[in-house]
Every structure is written in C-alpha cells, then in structure tokens.
C-alpha cells in the first residue's frame, strides 16, 4: 500500500468518526447537551453517563457530539472564508501585478507580521465572541497566508508554457485566469486549506482557553476544555476527552492533509 493511501485511511478514519458524530449529534444525543442537572455534577464515566458529567451535571458525551458539529462548522466556514478571500485577492494580485499587487501585498504583509493568534484575539474583541465574530476574526487572520500561497502559485503558473499557449490561442486575460490559472492553483490551495482546517480548530480552542472563543453554553471542544481546566485534578475525564477529540481529529486532518499533498504536490511525496 502506498504511503498516501495509508495516510488517507489512517487520517480518514478518525475524521469520518468525528464527522459522523457531528452529524448524528445534530439530530440525536444521549442527553440534551445543554440540560443542567445540578444533582449529578462531576460524575465519573459510568453506565448512566458513558463519559461522565461536567460541573453542571451535563452529559459529556452528548456535549462532545454537539461540540463536534460546532467545531467542524466553525472550522469549515472559516477555511471557506479564507479560501474565498485568499483566492480572489491572490489571483488578482498575482495576475494583475503592478500597483494592485503592491497594495494588496503590503496590506497582506502588514497582517502577516502579526501572529495569527494575536490578530484573531484583537479582531475577536471587536466583533464580540459569537459564532459570526469568530468566523470573521479567524477568517481574516488566516486569509493573508492564503493570499500569499495563491499569489505565489499564480506567479509561478504565469511562467508556465500552457499560459503562453492560452494567450497564443487568442484568449483574454480573464478567461486564462479562470480557465487555466485558477484550477491549477487549487492543488496547493487545497493542501493549505487542509492544514488550515486543523490550525483553525486549534486556534479556536486556544482562544477559548484565553477566555474568548465560542460563547458557552454552546459547547465546542475548546471551550469545554477551558471550562474543564479548574476541575482537571479531580475530574480528569473532563480534560482528557475534549483534549483527545482535538488531538485525534487534528491527527486525522494532518495525516489526511499529507495524503492530499502527496497527490497534489509530488515533490513532497513520502513526507
């Protein structure tokens, strides 16, 4: 079995599990993930609550399932946002060059000069910690690197002979951009988008850790971990399961991303 096939499977398995859990979690969870039951606070994993309960007596498994949906949809939307903005700006900057390029890129460089975590933090303080604010803030924080990659691959594609061939055939710049350049920069873009997906998941949980992030009571793995912190010493499961979910899904994403990169970027094959 080739390495990337193995990675597809190794990475795909946990991803499929989490996506499945997210999907099921939208319609059915063992308990209502928001229901507070103050009489069964901090119960260890057992027959009634498979993964135990949290500090409000809410069922951990149900919350993890519900959180999978939130985490996945936030990450997906954010990546989609960055993808759309990055492709538009990157293709325009790379193809137009000149002043347009310079303006876009110096704005971009200015944003890149901040660690994306800090940028998201600052933006999040403005937009407020709600779902849309988070997507907007994270999306804006991650767009610059996408712009950079897209522009880079547009610049290198421009030098390829099939772009010349398109011009020779009498095609307009816009047509060439859409028909030849855009589809061909999707490879590196998808590779970046995959790793970005993991990165967004991680940043969202880190922001929750610092007190921002998705507002409770809607659970995400990140804010579950953050609220679990004070109880970790006596309720280990509260910290372990969300942490495991994050780590495992990131592992899945990373392996899956490697497999995708192997397909799109043969130069990196075998990594």
């Amino acid at each position: 079995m080739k390495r990337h096939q193995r990675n597809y499977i190794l990475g795909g398995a946990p991803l499929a599990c989490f996506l499945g859990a997210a999907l099921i979690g939208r319609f059915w969870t063992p308990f209502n993930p928001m229901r507070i039951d103050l009489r069964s606070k901090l119960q260890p994993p057992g027959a009634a609550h498979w993964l135990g309960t949290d500090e409000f007596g809410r069922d951990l498994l149900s919350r993890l399932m519900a959180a999978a949906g939130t985490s996945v949809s936030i990450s997906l939307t954010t990546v989609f946002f960055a993808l759309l903005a990055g492709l538009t700006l990157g293709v325009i900057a790379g193809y137009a060059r000149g002043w347009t390029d310079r303006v876009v890129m110096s704005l971009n460089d200015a944003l890149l000069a901040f660690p994306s975590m800090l940028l998201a933090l600052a933006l999040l303080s403005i937009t407020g910690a709600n779902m849309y604010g988070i997507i907007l803030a994270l999306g804006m924080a991650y767009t610059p690197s996408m712009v950079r990659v897209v522009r880079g691959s547009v610049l290198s594609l421009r030098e390829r002979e099939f772009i010349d061939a398109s011009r020779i055939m009498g095609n307009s710049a816009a047509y060439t951009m859409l028909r030849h350049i855009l589809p061909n920069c999707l490879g590196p873009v998808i590779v970046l988008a995959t790793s970005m997906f993991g990165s967004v998941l991680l940043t969202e949980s880190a922001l929750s850790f610092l007190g921002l992030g998705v507002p409770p009571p809607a659970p995400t793995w990140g804010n579950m971990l953050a609220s679990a912190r004070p109880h970790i010493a006596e309720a280990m499961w509260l910290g372990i399961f969300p942490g495991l979910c994050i780590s495992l899904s990131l592992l899945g994403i990373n392996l899956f991303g490697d497999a995708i990169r192997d397909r799109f970027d043969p130069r990196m094959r075998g990594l």
Partner: protein
Amino acid sequence: MSLPRSILRAFLSSAALALPGMAAANTLTVQITADIRSSQPGINRDAGTDSVVLNVVEGLVAAGDKGEIRPMLAKSWTVSADGKTYTFALREGVKFHNGATMTAADVQWSLEKLIRDPEFSCKTFFDGSRDAKVESIKAAGDHTVVVTLDRPDAMFLNYMAQAQCGSTGIVHRSSFNEDGSWKAPVATGPFVFGEWKRGEGLTLKKFADYSITGDKPDGYGGRKEVLLDEVKYVVVPDTATAVAGLRSGALDVLPYLPPGEAAKLKDEKGFTIVAAPHGGLVTMLFQTTDPLMSNVAMRHAVIAALDTPQIVDSVTYGLGIPNNSLVASGSLYHTAAHDKGYVYDPSAVPGLLQKAGYKGEKITILTNRRSAINYDTAIIAQAMLQSVGINAEIEVLEWASQLDRFNSGKYQIMAFNYSNRTDPGLAYQTVVGSKAKKANTVWDDTEASALVNKSLQEADPAKRQAIFDDLHARFLDQAPLVMLANGLDVGVAGPKVKGYRTWQGFARFWGVERRK
C-alpha cells in the same frame, strides 16, 4: 527513575534560595491574579490593589469588623454640634517607614494632597458633588487635625475609612519624587513596601518600628501584630495554575478563589477555607427601559422562575448565604424584614407571562468569564428560564465589554457583581437613581431615591432601619433587579499558614503565622 530524581533534587536545592516555597521560613507567598495598578492609596486602584496597599498605609480612622468606624492614626475625634467640624486627636509617637515621627502637619499635608488630587478615585465624596465638600484641613498643634465641611455629612467618616479611597491613607512627603510624581508609599502601616517587579509581583517587609495599638484585630483597625518577615505577592492570573501552586507549596495563600475551586480544596487535608460575605452585591440586573423588561409582570415572571437559593448554593458551592435584600446579610440592619425574599414558583410563571404579554421573544442574559459567579449564575438561570418557556439566551462578553454595556445601560438582563458597599445606604445608593442622569442606574424611582438620600443623612440607627425596611418592601414589589447574595470572597490558606482570616474580602497579613 530514582536516579534522575535525586540528581534533580540536588540541582534544585542549589537554587533553593530563589524558589518560592523553599524560601526562608517566614516569607508568606500570596497569589494575586493581576499586578497591582499602583502603590498610591486611592489613586489608580482596583480592589486587588487596595487589598495590597492597605497592608502598608493607614488612615486617621478605619472600618471595624461590623463596618463601624474605629480609631487608627487618630486616637479619638469629636464632631461639632452643627456636624460640620471634625477634630481628630492623633496618636503620638507613630513612626513612618523612614523613621520620621508623624505630626499633624504631615497628616494635613498628606490629606490635602490626596483629596485635591483630580485622579483620586473618591474625589466626588469630598468635593461636594455627592455629599459634603471638605472646606479646609488644618493642623492645630502637633497632634490635632481639624477638618471642616460645608454641610453635615453622616457618611464622612465612613468615606474616609473606605478601602477604595485608600482609607485616605497618610503618607510621608518622601513618598513623592522631587518633581511631585509618586515614588512609593512611605507610610505608617505594619508592612513596608518593598521591591515591586512589574508583571511578576512584589514584596512587603515587616515594619519593625510599627506602633501597635488595640488588643485584637478589628477590621482595618485594632491590633496589627506582624508575625512574618515578609509577604511575597506573586502574579498568577490562572486559577488552575495557582491551585497547583498551592498544592505544591509554592503558594501559601490564594486570597480570591472562585468558590468552585475552594469547595474542592475544602475536603483536602490541611487547607483552610476562609469565606466571608461582604457588602458587595451578587445580582442579575434588569434593564427597566427595555421594551420587554419594563413590564413588572415580566420581571416577576423571571424571578418566579428562578430558584434563587439553589442558584446561590450552586454558584458558591455551598459557601454563600442567599440574600434577597440589598441590606447585607452581615449588617446590623439586616433584620427579619430583610429575610423576606423571592418566592420560587414555576407554576405562577405562565400566568405572569400572560399578564406581561410575553410571546416567546428572545431575552439575552449578558455575562462574563472573569467572574465564575456571574458566569455560572447566567448558565443556571438560563436553564431555569428555558424550562418554564422563557426564551433566554446567553451572551458571554469580555469583562471590559460587559462593563461598557453596564455603563451605557444597553442590556436586557445582566449577571453583575457590585463591589463592597460597607453601609446599606451606600448599597441602595449604588442602584437607585435617575437613568437620565446616570445611565448605569438600575432602579429608577423617585420615591426610592428620596428615601436613599434620607438614609445617608440620617444618623439615628432606628430611623435608618425604618427607611431600609421601607426600601426593601418597594424593592421586592418593583423588582428592578434580582438580588441573589452578598459578595463572597473565598480564600484558601495552605497547611503551613495559621491565623489567616479574611474581612470584607480583604487579605490582611497581620496576625498571620507561617510554620516551617
């Protein structure tokens, strides 16, 4: 396993002098969640700063255990018949930290400088904009200071003793640089302000020449005998880390712990939990100008849906005392009349909602994560409201943003804590007033407002009691906010610490011992 461990031990011991918890026996290590804002009493302060600085500075008077005014640097005082002139007799032989002996001139200079400082956080208490204006401060001889007001003010001494005013602490001239800027406090308290590493922490050292007065500790007055060599404050913003530090012995005292944390430590051996309610208010505010919440029936519906004792019990992990009156549960004025509170009655809710014309509109509860109590309150309240068909949602804001909403009055329901109010009159004054004049007012009612003003000028306890009883009845009737409990600061002391008590939430370190 054992080999690397022993090597590590040896290695550690070589560095032992620098590690907290392994330091010289009589250093008490204390967590502060944020660095202090300044070392100047009453200026650029917050509650955490007050708590540190009040170990160093003292005022003429101090608040006693029950909120009554006690002598501190003044051994006694008299008030003129018109109530406008206060004559303080100073204690003799009190030494500043630099060795100088305190004189009336020092007191007069220091008070004058503080009260006239535009950045003084209690400026409005003394410039006539709220109550009386201080007309003059004069030294009469070496040991007498005379303060004249423009009108009588029952709260004057109370203001002077307030922590947020830095207890109007007396400092020596050498606390300032030559250009008039603040250097560091040279005061008269039992601790000397030591090294301050910004962002990391600071050290207070025992003041050997402190002149002890009184026979037992009494609030910020009374006997202040220091049994330690120094107190080292370490900035540890993260609660979980602080608890880990307490367990490992790196920290001796965590003065402000979320109740949930403290409750867990309660069962562990050797830890002392120190919990005492103070005059702060744990509340859920209603915005009475909001289209929905302006309806009294709606507010009563919300209150009937809330099992407030259960909420208090949950959010304080059994450490808090439910109290539905703005008169603090520990106050002299908290009589049986004030034990009357809300009635938890979910069955009454539908009727009230119908009366209010509620049609399932969304109600947003604002809260924050800075205060575990606010946060937990909102979560539990939301669950209770939803279970009776009130469409409540939670919006978690960052503290500064929530404060902004509080000050501008833009909210429907908000979980909010008021800081310590030492007198019931002050507690009422905080929430009562005119929204038009002050947007962060909660209870906008002219009659209540008049009653509150009266209570602040009335010196007779019996008459005051009557006013407070009247106010409480109106409070329950109008339900401008949900009063849940009084402020609760929970501290935990490690196994080596003896004698740590908290008062009104303040961490005082006289009378505290630390075993080897």
